[in-house]
């Protein structure tokens, strides 16, 4: 099974003819993902190393039978691209683009939810189900297939932890980078709910960071709805209060939102929290190998 992307994923890449879209789209195909189409308005009839380009996502769906879209278009076109994908009938949209205005996301999120479509991102690294499909910019080679579900607000931190798990001989069912923007299509809870339901996932690892209260909410969800063991890591223990660190997802709001507050909320419901990426990997490895 795995979650969100798998062997049934038929991917259209919006912005496949751009440099990033091409680089990562082809890497996704090289990984084994079925990349069935690209969309660039005005370039229908062309191809990118054999992947046909269409003018619209609707054509990619009707002619290429795409069911999932990967969005690589520039920020000012990103909301339009997601709307287009949703209206074209894909069931999943993964949006890598960063700097999508938060107010655009307000309306878009509400619309996507009303339509029952799964959105991951924006400003996220994508979703990788090792051995099945890689959709986005996650470096597939650092992850092994296995039974650990990984969900993270931070892209590179996810690779770091996946890498440490792989070095400990462990693998992942799916790795989901939800993105760190103020509004993202899938929250920790949305993804944890899927891990709980996924027969291939046995353990979940949550990778959070300072700012907001998503980790606190996830802790509550885990306590109330999850039977599978959950581990966590939170970045930003040494962040000075009140400083913005890189993106809106990392604004500390008052006393809440600190790494320490998140750690406490997670530990309060029995989730073990590592102090460094290595430590959380070690905790998971110890558990997976029977303590």
């Amino acid at each position, binding site marked *: 099974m795995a979650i969100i992307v798998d062997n049934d994923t038929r991917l259209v890449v919006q912005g496949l003819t751009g440099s*990033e879209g091409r680089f*990562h789209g082809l890497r996704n195909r090289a990984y084994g993902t079925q990349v069935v189409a690209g969309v660039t308005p005005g370039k229908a009839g062309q191809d990118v190393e054999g992947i046909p380009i269409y003018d619209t996502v609707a054509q990619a769906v009707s002619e290429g039978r795409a069911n999932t879209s990967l969005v690589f278009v520039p*920020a*000012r076109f990103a909301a339009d691209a997601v709307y287009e994908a949703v209206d074209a009938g894909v069931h999943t949209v993964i949006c*890598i683009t*960063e*700097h999508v*205005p*938060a*107010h655009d996301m*307000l*309306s878009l*999120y*509400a619309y996507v939810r*009303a339509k029952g479509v799964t959105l991951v991102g924006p400003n996220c*690294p994508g979703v990788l189900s090792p051995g099945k499909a890689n959709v986005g*910019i*996650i*470096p597939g080679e*650092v992850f092994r297939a296995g039974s650990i579900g990984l969900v993270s*607000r*931070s*892209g*590179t*931190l*996810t*690779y*770091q932890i996946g*890498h440490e798990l792989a070095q400990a001989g462990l693998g992942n069912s799916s790795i989901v980078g939800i993105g*760190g*923007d*103020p*509004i993202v299509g899938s929250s920790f809870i949305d993804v944890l709910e899927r891990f709980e339901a996924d027969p291939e996932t046995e353990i979940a690892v949550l*990778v959070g*960071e*300072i700012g*907001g*209260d*998503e980790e606190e*909410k996830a802790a509550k969800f885990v306590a109330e709805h999850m039977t599978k063991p959950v581990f966590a*890591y939170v*970045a*930003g*223990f*040494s*962040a*000075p209060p009140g*400083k*913005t*660190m*890189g*993106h*809106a*997802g990392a604004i500390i709001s*008052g006393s809440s939102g600190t*790494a320490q507050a998140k750690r406490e909320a997670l530990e309060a419901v029995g989730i073990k929290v590592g*102090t*460094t*990426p*290595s430590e959380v990997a070690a905790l998971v490895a110890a558990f997976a190998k029977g303590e």
Partner: protein
Amino acid sequence: MDLLEYQGKQLFGAAGIPVSDGRVCTTAAEARAAADEVGYPVVVKAQVLTGGRGKAGGVKLAADADETERIAEGILGLDINGHVVRTLWVEHASDIEREYYLSVTFDRGAKKPLLMFTTEGGVEIETVAEENPDALVRLHVDPLEGFQPHHARALVYGAGLTDPSEQKQVSAIVEKLYRCFEQNDAMLAEINPLIVTPDGLVKALDAKVTIDDSALGRHPELAELRDEGAADPLETLARSKGVTYVKLDGTVGIVGNGAGLSMSTVDVVVVAGGSPANFCDLGGGASADSVVNALEVITADPQVGSILFNIFGGITRGDEVARGILAALERIDITVPIVVRLDGTHAEEGRALLAEAAPANLYVEPTMLDAARRAVELAR
């Protein structure tokens, strides 16, 4: 991006929200002239992006021109929580009958704008929320619905406002504040206090507005305001170079890719017994040039004793980072040692480039923790 009070008030004024007549000043003489124009008494307010201005002596009343000048001189140059006052706002002082609180914020959890209103103004809003939660009316606006007049009514009647003229004025201000929030891509638009004068006029006595950085592209007039509020010269330099940089107080310069990994690197340097000199995030898909820019900014800090690169490639490619480091070593005179840890996309190519060039003061380490330990050691 946080706006200074006077910038927020200018947005409010443009949105039709009543504010007092005032002027921006940078010298005591300007303050005196401004006070003459707006009429006495005036209030002289330090324009800094930090709270507690009043307690720190940054907000004072003046009854005449001499007093205004004396007070302005006293406030200019004041250090308020590390922010040096360079700009003042001088406005005609308002008589205050009652103080209310009104705001629109971006509720990340609910994924909806949140309106908050209370007639229990003049205190910290957190205190009201805790001690008298019923007095604080909280109302989300569904993005599929958009703002409707009933939202304003729910606040006004919910908070128990009884005077019909106030109900009308506050309702109008709620709608205008919401439009202002929406049209300026704000993450926060707060009026604290929203006052009622003895004449029964409702107006905004302060303004706290935060603009979504990702939307500045469509608000060039707001983007221009950015540097006016910047405190640290290094951060200003960083911004001009397109680098996300936060100055800290230690000795280990840090460069990561992605906010999470960069923050984690700061944490790990602390765990390894060191003290981070900064947080610097190359972001996604950094080019060699942006690596050079980052190194320029970091090496401009004299406290830096070593620099730690912690890169896990995704959209960022390890070979680009390696090229950037090598280019920087050629172009800039870097005397401190650089420790590099590269993994992920094109990491091998990157490591190969570094190994080939093999600069004297460059150390490549296999893991994040090893690299942090080495950088901490070298910074001593």
